[in-house]
């Protein structure tokens, strides 16, 4: 935000009032983050299909754009823009039209506290990490809205599953990040990344065994939180057609799609900043921080894709069992364990 307002002052001179600067800086940041979300959908749909193809011994998209079908997402986007916007007769029209935006805005708000590079963070909040988890917790309301408004039993089932799953997996997701907050002594995302500078051995993932376990738990919970395989019960195509967005077409569907891939990247960015040292490289001085951050996050996205296309789907009861009887106790163990570790190693006075 500071760098953006600095840039705006350079372009428009010092004549801008602080309020105008704040508002224009905020709008610029929001625009950049929206573009990041759109890029996520474009890049990761292509990547997803290529990864799926690779794992199933086939090529995936090959025709559009010459090299390995790189322009396939652009063609898909043009197709989806040209689709008819259908609203079912019996749908609750106001809620049906509102829900894609609720989900999209909930996702966009979380991007405000992601530190991509030193100084490149939309809002350097003192409660950064807590804020991200808080605004992501509004997403189930958007999903319930979509499922209810469609007036379709598959959509409602998908929404009920999706909301129950996200509400449940928020708990291990947030608890897994608590040991890091304890080690840093701050919820500020910049402070968390700064504390991990100076090589791979200072990253929180190797801080102590409990933090390594916490990272693994975070990774599993984040897959469930973004409703992707093997935790994609809300949209199981074999039983629920397409889950909560069964009735959506065209641009409205595109918003769901955009939010899904943006959330996939978002949870990977959080993991990068919190566990994998953010913009700090494996060794040596900080070099091209934004690129380092992106590479780490994209590797995590790739891992999530590998998991999705490798493992079979869980059942709903297995899903809840995994969350409440396995992951929540284990994350609590991580919190306790890293607390004891910090006391013994003398980090905590």
């Amino acid at each position, binding site marked *: 935000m500071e760098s953006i307002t600095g840039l705006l002052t350079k372009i428009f001179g010092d004549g801008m009032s602080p309020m105008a600067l704040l508002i224009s800086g905020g709008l610029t940041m929001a625009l950049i983050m929206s573009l990041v979300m759109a890029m996520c959908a474009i890049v990761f749909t292509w990547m997803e299909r290529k990864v799926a193809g690779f794992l199933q011994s086939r090529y995936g998209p090959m025709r559009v754009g010459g090299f390995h079908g790189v322009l396939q997402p652009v063609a898909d986007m043009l197709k989806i823009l040209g689709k008819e916007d259908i609203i079912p007769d019996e749908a*609750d029209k106001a809620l049906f039209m509102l829900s894609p935006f609720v989900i999209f805005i909930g996702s966009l708000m979380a991007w405000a506290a992601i530190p991509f590079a030193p100084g490149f963070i939309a809002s350097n909040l003192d409660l950064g990490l807590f804020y991200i*988890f*808080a605004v992501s*917790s509004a997403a*189930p309301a958007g999903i319930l809205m979509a499922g209810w408004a469609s007036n379709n039993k598959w959509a409602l089932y998908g929404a009920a599953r999706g909301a129950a799953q996200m*509400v449940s997996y928020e708990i291990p997701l947030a608890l897994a990040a608590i040991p890091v907050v304890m080690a840093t002594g701050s919820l500020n995302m910049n402070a968390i990344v700064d504390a991990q500078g100076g090589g791979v051995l200072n990253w929180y993932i190797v801080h102590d065994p409990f933090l390594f376990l916490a990272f693994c738990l975070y990774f599993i919970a984040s897959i469930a939180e973004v409703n992707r395989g093997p935790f994609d019960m809300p949209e199981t195509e074999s039983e629920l057609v397409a889950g909560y967005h069964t009735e959506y077409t065209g641009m409205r569907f595109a918003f769901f799609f955009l939010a899904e891939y943006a959330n996939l990247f978002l949870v990977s960015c959080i993991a990068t900043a919190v566990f994998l040292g953010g913009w700090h490289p494996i060794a040596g001085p900080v070099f091209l921080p934004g690129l380092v951050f992106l590479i780490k996050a994209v590797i995590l996205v790739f891992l999530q894709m590998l998991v999705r296309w490798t493992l079979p789907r869980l059942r709903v009861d297995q899903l809840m069992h995994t969350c409440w009887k396995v992951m929540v106790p284990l994350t609590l163990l991580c919190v306790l364990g890293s607390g004891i570790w910090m006391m013994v190693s003398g980090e905590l006075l």
Partner: protein
Amino acid sequence: MAADLVFYGFALLTVLAGCFVVFSRNVVHAGFALMFTLLGVAGLYAMLGADFLAVTQTVVYIGGILILVLFAVMMTRVPSQNAPRRGLDRMVPAGIFAVAIFALLYKVATGTSWPTATPGEALPTAKLIGVKLMTDAIFPFEFASLVLLVAMIGAAILIRERKVLPAEAPAEEAATEAPADEPEVTA
């Protein structure tokens, strides 16, 4: 000036959405409007410099309680076919309660002295709240966690699988009672 505008924006959002919650005939719409009321209140907290409270409000009320309310509403009935009854038997108790609550709120609102602080730089509040919770407020904090634990155990007991199905109960009872009777027979 600009801060005033933001305040009125959040206040308007809170009040308008709140009115919608009260006057809407559709329970599900009312539930979703509640989301915007709670969001407005969170915004007001943030404007007062209570950032931790604002974020907690979002997590607890929008992420937790609202979802629970929506689940309950959606799973119980279809609002379009089942508009709420408006008989006198409902209106009289509702009216009494409304007047009583208004009187109480009025008394509290006029009886409180509202201290004002000069707006300054918003300071981080999370650390202060954490220290308070672990020192001065440790008893209420632990007591609240005990209450929640009791609620959780209660919920687990309510939904646990019962070994004996109601339809098969008599046969099962006979089967289980038989061995218990045996000692008496032998005695």
